[in-house]
């Protein structure tokens, strides 16, 4: 790993960050975590913040994520939605996997939704699309359409240079 700075530098690798599935839903605007640095019942949240907060921020660069340490007797995560409503998530004495699963289920996009967005992003939802990244590069590949002007020149009345008298 290049530049192995910090306690667990794997958290800073692209592969680790890209592989996370913590993409927040559109409603979520703000995430704040309150916990203490010492305490048996804070252990799960400490680990969650240590391992998963970089991933969360990487996947949601426009969402504010704040941590408040050593202010509360019991740890909790508070999420603010876009209509002003805030949702509390109690994480007292929970282990890190439990918190991760619960958080992902309630506030993040599900696997199916992510797959669908990936599908849409690759323009594969509409089979008629052509262009970069689709099955067909250009409309001239489709039988029945005007053939590629690079191979067969267009007729004169379709050429702009002829129509404007410049040919």
């Amino acid at each position, binding site marked *: 790993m290049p530049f192995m700075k910090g306690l667990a530098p794997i958290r800073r690798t692209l592969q680790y960050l890209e592989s996370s599935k913590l993409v927040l839903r559109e409603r979520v605007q703000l995430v704040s975590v309150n916990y203490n640095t010492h305490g048996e019942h804070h252990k799960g949240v400490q680990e969650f913040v240590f391992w998963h907060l970089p991933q969360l921020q990487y996947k949601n660069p426009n969402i504010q994520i704040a941590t408040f340490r050593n202010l509360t007797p019991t740890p909790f995560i508070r999420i603010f939605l876009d209509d002003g409503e805030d949702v509390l998530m109690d994480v007292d004495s929970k282990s890190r996997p439990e918190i991760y699963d*619960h958080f992902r289920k309630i506030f993040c996009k599900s696997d199916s939704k992510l797959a669908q967005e990936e599908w849409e992003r690759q323009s594969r939802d509409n089979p008629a699309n052509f262009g970069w990244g689709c099955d067909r590069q250009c409309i001239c590949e489709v039988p029945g359409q005007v053939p590629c002007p690079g191979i067969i020149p267009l007729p004169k009345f379709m050429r702009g240079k002829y129509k404007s008298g410049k040919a």
Partner: protein
Amino acid sequence: MNIGVRSNLVALGCGARLWYPVHEAMVTLTGSQTVRWIKPRWVPVAKSKMFRIPERKPLPLEEEVELRCLYNNYYMAMRAIRRHLCEERLRVSDTSELAIKAEEEQAEHDQLMEHNSQENLRVAALREARIKKEFEADLARVTASKEKLAKDAEKAEEEALRIINETQEFVKTFIKREDFEKAIETALANPVDYNFAIDQQGNIFRGRSTRPEDVAEEDKEKLLFAVQS
């Protein structure tokens, strides 16, 4: 084919089109213009006009640029307005895809919030139990330490009393100023001889000038500790 005058043709002044135009008839369009001749649709293109390409008059450069600018601005504005209205319609309409999706999402959101609150209740119960346990442990610790303190205080008191009593006893043996000279005289009269000798059988012979033969068998003092033989 002779496109002649038809007796049932009427040229209406209000601007109605005749279905079968006649090259001699005057067809009035909205009363402001008149059309002398319209080529019928089924008549083919004339020989002189078949391969005609309409001439495109070139505009001066400045005019072209200005025109293009105006067109661009206009189309940009129209596109923006159209898009905005479309989006608003999608957003506001009750039966659009967006509205349905929004409903579904809302239902899903409510369900997730419900799940979250259930989980919170469960964790709250666990937390209450833990806090109660910790509180009881604290109480026990405090009472234990209190008892220990009380015991220690008692012991210290006892110790103090003991020391006081011993000292009181000791005080009785102090020599007062009045008996000072008498005490000196008694001390001088009774010197204490710390010298002693030990023999191999463990007998102690006290005194500087005591000889073993002088002490009788029965009076011999034995060492308290066992002698290794």
